[in-house]
């Protein structure tokens, strides 16, 4: 019995030492930002490090047949894995042309030599003593970081509850503009693409799916400016400076502000005169470079090249906006908020395939082969449907307009008139309202404002340029 407890103690100390060392980086990042983030944001990374730590412990213990020695080796290995980037930076100070694939194998070989040497030279009882020291030091470090973080965590929760209570007012309005997004009809007729699931998911969520909506022309500036003006104020004869002037404090914004709405931009909305929440410096819980807690943790590890973002800036703007809309923490239901999202998607450049993977740059503007527009369209719709379902679930009293300005313009198989056929899916608090099916985006917005604020807008006769 005594012998058994004597064997168990080194095992427990070893497990604790490796466990504490493994989760420390995630706990440290969380504790430093406890007022801005939840532990769930770093929990998966903490779990990953823990698994790596214990896997290393098991392998080394099998090789050395000494759990305490294995714990020391595993702890050093975990520290190497989680702080690899620092080592690479130091090496590159001396050898600037050294790459990841040079440094990693050399470090691994050196670590193996170090472990063999340590295991041979250390006297029998020393590994257990060292493991105990590691365990206590790591436990101390965790405690030092965790104790001051608890009040911050509580404060964050209280602030969020208060924000919801203070702002609870009118229904939120989400208007998502997908530039160059074809209607379901266009996709069926000219891309031979029919996905009834997409349409069904919109309808099941309570959306009105308009099959025959057309806008006045194929120019984004004109169509969106007219929507903001709630009239056909912008015409093709005007200059782009005149269109821009019409977007300064337009009637749509005025109407919303008169009803106590706040204006919020997502994606590329600077040209629509609304600050975007997804420009990197404004993303809550992110650094000025737009990095979240997970990015900060992974970018220091040996796995950093596999998680590093190496897409173009254009792709990054789109992904940030989509991810932002996907996160319910960024929205407060029924808070009289107007969210205007503009995404240059599925507009060229064709950056994503249907699964969101990068497309070869030589095909960024390839309209000749329809697979590139189609791939980006499918990816955009997959993400947007998921976002629409999330909004309906979290904010069922809201109004959502998902529409495009025009269809795919550079597909020569599509006649000009059909290029102005647009996507228009509207959700109005789960209700069915008239005048959406077959309406232009402009008329749909007028109908929605009538429903919400009783504005008395008449239906405008369709213009075509």
């Amino acid at each position, binding site marked *: 019995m005594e012998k058994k407890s004597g064997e168990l103690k080194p095992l427990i100390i070893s497990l604790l030492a490796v466990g504490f060392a493994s989760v420390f980086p995630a706990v440290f990042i969380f504790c430093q930002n406890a007022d801005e983030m939840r532990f769930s944001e770093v929990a998966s990374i903490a779990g990953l490090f823990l698994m790596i730590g214990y896997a290393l412990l098991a392998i080394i213990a099998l090789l050395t047949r000494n759990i305490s020695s294995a714990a020391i080796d595993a702890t050093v290995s975990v520290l190497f894995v989680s702080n690899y980037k620092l080592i690479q930076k130091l090496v*590159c100070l001396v050898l*600037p*042309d050294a*790459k*990841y*694939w*040079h440094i990693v*194998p*050399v470090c691994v*070989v050196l670590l193996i030599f170090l472990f063999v040497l340590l295991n041979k030279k250390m006297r029998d009882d020393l590994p257990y003593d060292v493991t105990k020291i590691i365990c206590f030091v790591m436990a101390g470090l965790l405690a030092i970081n965790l104790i001051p973080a608890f009040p911050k965590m509580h404060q964050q929760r209280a602030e969020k509850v208060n924000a919801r209570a203070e702002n609870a007012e009118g229904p939120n309005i989400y208007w998502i503009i997908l530039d160059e997004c074809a209607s379901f009809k266009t996709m069926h007729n000219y891309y031979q693409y029919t996905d009834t699931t997409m349409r069904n998911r919109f309808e099941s969520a309570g959306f009105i799916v308009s099959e025959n909506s057309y806008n006045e022309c194929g120019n984004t500036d004109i169509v969106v400016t007219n929507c903001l003006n709630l009239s056909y104020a912008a015409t093709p004869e005007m200059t782009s400076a005149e269109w821009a002037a019409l977007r300064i404090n337009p009637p749509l914004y005025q109407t919303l502000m008169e009803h106590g709405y706040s204006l919020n931009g997502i994606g590329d909305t600077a040209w629509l005169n609304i600050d975007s929440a997804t420009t990197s410096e404004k993303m809550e819980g992110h650094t000025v470079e737009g990095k979240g807690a997970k990015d900060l943790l992974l970018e220091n590890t040996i796995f950093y*090249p*596999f998680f*590093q973002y*190496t*897409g*173009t*800036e254009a792709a990054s703007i789109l992904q940030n906006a989509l991810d932002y809309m996907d996160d319910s923490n960024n929205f407060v239901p029924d808070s009289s908020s107007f969210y205007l999202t503009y995404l240059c998607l599925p507009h060229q*450049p064709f950056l994503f395939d249907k699964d969101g993977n990068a497309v*070869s*740059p*030589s*095909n*960024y*503007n*390839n*309209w*000749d082969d329809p697979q590139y527009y189609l791939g980006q369209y499918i990816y955009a719709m997959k993400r947007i449907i998921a976002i629409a379902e999330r909004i309906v679930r979290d904010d069922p009293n809201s109004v959502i307009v998902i529409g495009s300005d025009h269809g795919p313009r*550079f597909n020569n198989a599509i006649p000009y008139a059909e290029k102005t056929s647009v996507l228009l899916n509207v959700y109005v608090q789960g209700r069915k309202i008239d005048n959406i099916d077959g309406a232009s985006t402009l008329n749909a917005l007028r109908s929605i404002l009538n429903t919400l604020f009783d504005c008395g807008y008449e239906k405008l006769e369709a213009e075509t340029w």
Partner: protein
Amino acid sequence: MVSKKSSKLLIGLIVCGIALSVYLAFANRIMLSFSELPEVQEGNISQFSTGREVHKALDRGEWLGGLFEKYYFQGWAFCETDTGNEGKYAVLIFKNSNSDHCYYVETPGSFRPDVYGVFKDRFNIRGNMHGIECQFSTVTIPSGEYDFFVYVKENDQDYGIVDMNMHFVKRGAEFVSANN
């Protein structure tokens, strides 16, 4: 007297050391062979002959970094031509600022109907493949300073090279435009 076990260990260590050294010497090439990026080649600027005037613009130059230290170019370039240009391609050339030695990467023309639309009335421009959309690895480009040229080959008769008046600096893992 060295024991048999020790001598075996020593031979093992020497073999491993040699294998590691060989790997390290060719590691860049080995790793790049796993990427889908176009190959950056070494050469001399004189191999790209001057012919016709090149009309060009650089829309975007972006350091993407990552494991393969990627750089991304977006722009367009063309020479006037009377004959077909189905196999049109462009070459992005980084010439060492102190010599004629250069590193270059070939890229096929990409679809840019807007370029044709703007220039069709002013120049003898053919087709729509005037875009340059290229991502390449800068791993094999050594640290130093480089001038940026673009060579365009419409066909065997019509080609040209142009100095983009841009200067790049390769420093460690970074490749940046000194004009920024």
